[in-house]
């Protein structure tokens, strides 16, 4: 009957493939992301022709830096979506971390490391709290984190009294985080790269990652296979807490002070958009970091290009919505999804 073909099929999810070096890049990108790469190429070419400076190194740095905070959140959002959850509270968590880092920094006589450490600690606590509510309160992840969206925003406002707090740009560490460059690449972008690579390896190369795919793909199967789903869920939300805290610290470093809401509101939608555009199935079990990062890059290049061209924000909204749909339609056509029935 059928014979076993040992190589991975073309449908294999990204990061499933072999161990070898050249395969790794392709697996990181993922075959099904080719249309995203195409869209990215079109955007780069288009704006590159319209404006000679668009493709300059400095503008690429600007784009990368502007996309970093969204990128970090999109990476962890990908993880939680793969395991069948969602985190709508990420933006508020960023606000909390931003305020905490700046306030601790200021109140401990400009101790940057302590500020960073406490912010990350608070991030872990918030993430674990989310996880516990979901697991032991048996609350749907969407509802639980919707509640978190309001509650943590309130927390950040209460801590800061609604104002920007502290001033950190007299400190070398924060200045480095906000403006430093290593090998021509901004420090924040390095952080994004480090987090993305770590999470990618986690998802594709460890049994932990594979278990995350299992939980999102079929929770009953995962439970019967003896995977401790509860532990995994709490851990994933804690991971989100940590990465959101890092994003909050970067926000502080960029703006110079702790921002309770400014700069973090609405990030959840951007992160989810990027993850979904990057190929995550919102019902879980499917997706990868490669696609998400491509989507982040695409959205970032688009936004920057529209601004460079001086297009007003109303048209930008229309253009972004339309382009998002077009990118996905092309992606779907290519992958040959069936037309009859619910196209999820």
């Amino acid at each position, binding site marked *: 009957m059928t014979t076993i073909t040992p190589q991975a*099929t073309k449908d294999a999810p990204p990061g499933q493939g072999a161990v070898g070096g050249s395969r790794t890049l392709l697996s990181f990108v993922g075959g099904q992301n080719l249309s995203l790469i195409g869209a990215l190429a079109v955007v780069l070419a288009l704006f590159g022709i319209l404006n000679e400076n668009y493709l300059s190194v400095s503008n690429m740095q600007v784009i990368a830096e502007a996309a970093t905070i969204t990128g970090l959140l999109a990476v962890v959002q990908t993880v939680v979506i793969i395991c069948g959850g969602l985190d709508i509270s990420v933006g508020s968590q960023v606000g909390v971390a931003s305020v905490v880092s700046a306030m601790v920094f200021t109140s401990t006589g400009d101790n940057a490391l302590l500020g960073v450490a406490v912010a990350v600690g608070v991030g872990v606590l918030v993430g674990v709290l989310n996880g516990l509510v979901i697991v032991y309160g048996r609350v749907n992840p969407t509802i639980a984190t919707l509640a978190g969206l309001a509650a943590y925003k309130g927390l950040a406002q209460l801590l800061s009294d609604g104002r920007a707090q502290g001033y950190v740009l007299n400190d070398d560490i924060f200045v480095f985080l906000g403006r430093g460059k290593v090998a021509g690449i901004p420090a924040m972008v390095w952080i994004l790269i480090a987090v993305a690579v770590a999470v990618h390896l986690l998802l594709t190369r460890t049994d932990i990652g594979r278990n995350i795919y299992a939980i999102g793909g079929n929770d009953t199967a995962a439970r019967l296979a*003896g995977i401790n789903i509860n532990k995994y869920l709490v851990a994933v939300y804690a991971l989100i807490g940590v990465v959101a805290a890092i994003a909050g610290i970067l926000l502080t470093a960029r703006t110079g002070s702790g921002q309770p809401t400014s700069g973090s509101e609405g990030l959840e939608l951007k992160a989810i958009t990027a993850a979904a555009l990057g190929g995550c199935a919102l019902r879980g079990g499917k997706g990868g970091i490669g696609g998400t990062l491509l989507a982040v890059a695409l959205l970032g290049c688009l936004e920057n290009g529209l601004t460079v061209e001086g297009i007003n924000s109303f048209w930008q909204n229309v253009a972004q919505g339309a382009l998002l749909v077009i990118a996905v339609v092309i992606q779907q056509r290519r992958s040959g999804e069936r037309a009859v029935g619910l196209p999820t």
Partner: protein
Amino acid sequence: MCPAPSPTPEPDPPATGQNVTSGAAVHDLTKRFGPVQALGGVTLDFPGGQVTALMGENGAGKSTLLKILTGDHQPTGGRITLEGQPLTLESPARARAAGIRIIPQEPEIIPYVSVAENVYAGALPTSAGRRLDRTELRRRVTADLDRLGFTGVLDPDLLGSQLTPAQRQLVEIMRAVTGEAKVVAFDEPTSSLSEHEVDALFRLIRRLRDQGTAVIYVSHRMQEIFQLADRIAVLRDGNLVGVQDARSTSVDELVRLMVGRDLSTMFTRRRADRGRLVLDVKDLTTEDVRNVNLQMHAGEVVGLAGLVGAGRSELALALAGDRPVLSGTVTLDGQRLRHGRPGEVIRAGLGLAPEERKAQALFLHRSIRDNSSLVVLERLRRLRFVSRAAERKLVQQYADRLRVRAPSIEHEVRKLSGGNQQKVVLARWLARKPKVLILDEPTRGIDVGAKAEIYQIIADLAEEGVALLVISSELPELLGLADRVVVMQNGRVTGELGHEDATEEAVLSLAMADDIAGVTPAGASS
């Protein structure tokens, strides 16, 4: 019904485990789901080195017992012991660690990971910390496939979402027998397998038994039970009504224990004359089905036979308008059907009760009533408002006729036992009364009593002039029911046998036509 090996009617005392310290046992086990008492104090042992079959009607509590044994459900009362030691199973992980495995009735597959990872989910091999060791994983799975004889049928690199029902079942089986297993329970494992895999499975079960594993085997197929079991425990309404030695009991006795009355188990249908032509399939070709020609007449029962993946279900879906048709035509009562429009096909008078009830037919969170009435709503409505009284009456009628076991027709379908869920699917199409009805594995997971009932219903429908296409992997059933049997292989019809010529051997040789070198497909008979 299936012919049973002639048993010796010798009333031996129920066999107990020869060795109390091997295998598992349950003591006074009870389980309630709200108002439903699924188990009412069952005491039973599953000794090592023996195959204990578990029988009983749909909803008797067999799956529930197994789910408790694997830690998936918590018992309301009672104890479990393993090798004589008390055991609390607070989670499936605990049960797995203790060496208790189950192949559940409905395979649970992880869609977007490979077969290999599906098999070893929760116990993936790692090296250097938590690094997934893919080489080792592949080695193990390949070895497992080899050992179990599934090498040809299951590609370890396929994704879970790409598997056929049979392949999904094989994955479940492989999952259960990896590692150290002391107790392995099979919950209707053959319901979607064909002969070839069944043979491999039986070899596996016998090997497990010989290694001293306690095997629990749940099935509604008498033939298998007598082939495999050492002892047979019968459940009725959540209570143990008897444990029989397999060598000394008979089909009739088991049936009496299960349903509490005598039942004529053999099925013979009065064959009517063939009516007018209702369905005419000409050169139908889809992605998986090639050049199929098929004619069906009113009042006729056509059996469709074939091995796993022969394309029978694909053909059924294509006829139901759910597959893109590449070429060919389907004509129903003179009306040419357009493909890609299941609604139009249904209105033209063709119904399909599909193979995978959970994925393709049922709305698990809705009531029996909602599920059963879905395709007859347009007859029950006035100004688009559905008449509830008429609906309830109709559904109740078919639920009674099929003996659906539930507190009421408002019960959610997900709370029903597997067999009863299947009956709900059948009720939907019986209520619709189409001109052509395709039943894909209609008795999958159905108990003896209900099976007889379904055979009767099929006969009645044929009598009323419905043309029936029955797909079944249980050959005896198919041969008993069908006026003629159409055999498929690799998406092609390889032959057709009249009722008289249709023997198991003839069907199988057509089903494996390509594999038997030099044999040309037998010409259509009758």
